[in-house]
């Protein structure tokens, strides 16, 4: 039985407007870390808030633990949520922040201390229990928010972009902490983000959303290696996948697969690329080139290479792609299609 399930879940904010969330069907798997990934406006936060009970669905059903919960308030759903800003109660100490859900759910007073200390121990913040939120760093606040979430031992965690308020350096270590936290607890978790690196790194499965529609659900490997449409293909991966229209198809190949001819033994396609710009990133090169000659003359392509290569601007070089690295999409529907032979010159 899935912990969280939605059936045809839809949310329209203003009548006549396009839906923020459209007919989403999903089922979580036991103990998984499921990521809702999408750009802003994709509906991922609205979807999460509907599961939490903070937004009313326009249509469809939400089930938690097998029971339909549409009519239940957040407090009746017994879920835990970590907000983007952490939403720590500024006038309460860390101890009282963590204890608050226990008080609200009328857990016996004698058990409070024990549970709070257990949660604090788990997140390594026992030494902070007497402090106020304003005295804590960003990373510490995240841990307090997590402790407050876990103290009730909920069946599902909802996390709304908890890393986006941290600065870049902190984000990496906070991400690592979240991952080990999940491994330790094993509670089903739904995590919302717009950052595809976070999604790939943390997710057991990734659900890609665009304009309120689910474009694909799959493991990181599946969404990266076999994107279901051009949106997923270009959203995951940085720099984004190269796309060329050819007849009824759009053909895509990732920058790391567009390599100098010497490195590609049996290329399915070759291009002559004039180098427009190169970026040396230390561990690799990003090369921006323009196709010289042939059917696609003038189109821009991006390539990603190891640091051993060197290229001279304005010079043209031969590049190639293997057959197995090509993705085919139907030009009309933008959806993944079968490989097909076609003319490239």
């Amino acid at each position, binding site marked *: 039985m899935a912990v969280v399930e939605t059936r045809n879940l839809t949310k329209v904010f203003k009548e006549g407007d396009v839906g923020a969330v459209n007919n989403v069907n999903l089922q979580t798997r036991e103990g998984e870390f499921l990521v809702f990934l999408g750009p802003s406006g994709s509906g991922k936060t609205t979807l999460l808030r509907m599961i939490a*009970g*903070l*937004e*009313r669905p326009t249509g469809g059903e939400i089930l938690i633990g097998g029971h339909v919960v549409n009519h*239940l*308030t*957040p407090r009746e759903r017994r879920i835990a949520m970590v907000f983007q800003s952490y939403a720590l109660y500024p006038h309460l100490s860390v101890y009282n922040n963590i204890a608050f859900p226990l008080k609200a759910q009328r857990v016996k007073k004698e058990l409070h201390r024990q549970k709070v200390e257990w949660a604090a121990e788990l997140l390594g913040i026992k030494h902070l229990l007497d402090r106020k939120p304003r005295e804590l760093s960003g990373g510490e606040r995240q841990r307090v928010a997590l402790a407050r979430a876990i103290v009730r031992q909920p069946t599902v965690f909802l996390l709304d972009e908890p890393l986006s308020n941290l600065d870049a350096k902190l984000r990496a270590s906070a991400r690592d902490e979240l991952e080990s936290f999940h491994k330790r607890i094993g509670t089903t978790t739904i995590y919302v983000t717009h950052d595809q690196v976070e999604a790939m790194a943390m997710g057991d499965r990734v659900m890609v959303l665009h304009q309120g529609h689910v474009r694909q659900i799959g493991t990181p490997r599946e969404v990266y290696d076999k994107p279901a449409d051009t949106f997923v293909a270009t959203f995951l991966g940085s720099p984004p996948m190269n796309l060329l229209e050819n007849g009824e198809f759009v053909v895509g190949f990732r920058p790391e697969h567009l390599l100098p001819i010497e490195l590609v033994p049996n290329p399915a396609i070759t291009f002559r690329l004039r180098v427009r710009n190169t970026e040396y990133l230390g561990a690799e090169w990003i090369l921006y080139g323009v196709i010289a000659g042939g059917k696609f003359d003038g189109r821009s392509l991006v390539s990603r290479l190891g640091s051993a290569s060197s290229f001279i601007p304005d010079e043209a070089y031969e590049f190639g792609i293997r057959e197995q690295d090509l993705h085919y999409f139907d030009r009309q529907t933008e959806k993944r299609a079968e490989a097909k032979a076609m003319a490239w010159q």
Partner: protein
Amino acid sequence: MESGAAHTVRYQIARWVVVVVFAVLLAFPFYWMLITTFKQTADLYTLENNPFVFNLPPTLNHLRLLFGQTRYLVWVGNTALVGVIVVGITLLLALPAAYALTRLTGKWGQSLGIGIFLTYLVPPTLLFIPLSRVVALLGLQDTIWSVVLVYPSFTIPFSIWLLMGFFKSIPRELEDAAMVDGLSRLGAFVKLVVPISISGILTVVIFTFTLVTQEFVYALTFISTESSQMLSVGVPTFLVRGDVYYWGSLMAACLIASIPVAILYNLFLDRFIAGFTVGAIK
């Protein structure tokens, strides 16, 4: 707040009840002023009549009396004139002061700003006795110039505080860019900051004018001649002959003086709150 609780019917009813009860209680006196203005005197002073309805047809007599046989319009004119002049003086002094305190003086500028605001808290009922002497010495006793002189003493601190809030929300970079482009600091203030803050300045104008129309203590203390009096003192004082209150005209006077100011005030309230909260948070 979209969660379950907010949408229960019970909560919505409670909300409506609270709002309606308070709105009625707070606005009732003005509604009463409205009714009284148009009721015939005989109707008003007959105890058996239901006061909520017009038992006799409505009349314009009270208004005629007010405009024709009292100095009401003179008071309105006095108040308007004083208002305009005081607004002018206030802007002249408060605009540069607020700018200087926000931009040019660093840490202690902030403290000075707070200090200036605190003077707003010094009440007229403490200063009016010494000031009455000062006003008499200057020969301004019984003229509108007495209040023209004294009113800026509270409109300026209030306006400085309000303007500081507005100026703080203008990014420094704008003036820096103007100065790099060749404007002097003063030039940047006059040609850039002031035009950008027009809506804030307008808010200050409205609120200053409101403060002038509401003031009572100084006008009561400094002015005794009917023809030089201000609206808020003239109405309760001179529309009474001996012990007799001409309620119809009195209520008309109050209503006419209150409503236009209220409309203007409401239009600018959101901007006032924006300036006030920016100042408080930053």
